[in-house]
């Protein structure tokens, strides 16, 4: 009864929001957004595309115009992986979580083979982030999921977490340092200081691919760390 009441109330809230948005004269109705009245209209002009040199406009916004957000986003992942390690990895002695099934030989070898392919796909997605959909975040998670595959296929496997920590730390620091370099070599924090090239080439968009590679490495190592923390447990006493 209480649940039904809550459901009814929530749906009423949704109705209220929808009605408020419908009566809102300034709110564009679905599918009729006018880009010329928004900032994004300017992102799509030829001058701006040439200035950044990235064929994927979403990438040029994520890493270029709103690169500072992305730095914050990386920080969110960083701190949550830090927190997961703090909460789940309290004691020094950690062992693998036992799986309910015993992986056989074929599974082990097959997953090793697949590991390479997934890793390559991840790297491809990161490198082509400024040309095609994708980029550092999905690419980094793909790399991490390749490592996850190894974890699932082999119940003895444990990645070298210390190495991940160092990789995470270095790539994160390099991101900030790239930003500071922009301040030194150009004028502003995170400003592009490399030649831009023409939009559409692999070697274009200046500093954007560099940042995406750093993000990919950082996200990959952070997510791997989180996965490791979830798949290990304290040594039974």
């Amino acid at each position, binding site marked *: 009864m209480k649940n039904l009441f809550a459901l009814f109330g929530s749906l009423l809230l949704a109705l209220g929001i929808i009605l408020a948005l419908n009566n809102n004269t300034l709110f564009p109705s679905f599918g009729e957004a006018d880009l010329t009245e928004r900032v994004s209209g300017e992102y799509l002009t030829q001058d701006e595309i040439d200035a950044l040199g990235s064929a994927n406009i979403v*990438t040029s916004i994520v890493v270029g115009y709103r690169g500072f957000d992305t730095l914050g986003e990386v920080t969110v992942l960083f701190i949550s992986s830090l927190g997961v390690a703090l909460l789940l990895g309290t004691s020094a002695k950690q062992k693998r979580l036992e799986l309910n099934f015993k992986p056989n030989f074929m599974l082990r070898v097959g997953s090793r083979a697949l590991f390479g392919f997934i890793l390559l796909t991840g790297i491809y997605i990161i490198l082509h982030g400024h040309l095609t959909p994708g*980029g550092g*975040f*999905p690419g980094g*998670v793909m790399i991490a999921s390749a490592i*996850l595959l190894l974890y699932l296929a082999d119940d003895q496997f444990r990645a070298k977490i210390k190495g991940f920590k160092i990789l995470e730390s270095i790539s994160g620091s390099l991101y900030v340092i790239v930003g500071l370099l922009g301040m030194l070599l150009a004028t502003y924090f995170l400003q592009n200081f490399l030649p831009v090239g023409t939009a559409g080439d692999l070697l274009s968009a200046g500093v954007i691919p560099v940042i995406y590679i750093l993000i990919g490495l950082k996200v990959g190592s952070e*997510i791997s760390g989180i*996965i490791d923390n*979830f798949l290990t447990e304290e040594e039974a006493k």
Partner: protein
Amino acid sequence: MFDIISLVIGVLLLVIAFLAINSKKLIQAVLFLSALSMLSVVAFVMMKAPDVAITEAVIGSGLVTSLFVFTLLSVRKGETK
């Protein structure tokens, strides 16, 4: 055409969301969440957002689901002991 597909996907989204919230077993709820995320990927593709679709497919329905499952797995083991 767009409207018909969006109607079908929309209804499916709502039904699955409702099932995910109200299902009794936790593992079922997690799987419904994964399906919901996958359906939202279709919606993202329809609304011409390939970047978001890739990210949501990899992160939302892949990584998050596995994290949920791992949490449940580690706990199941404790129950049997």
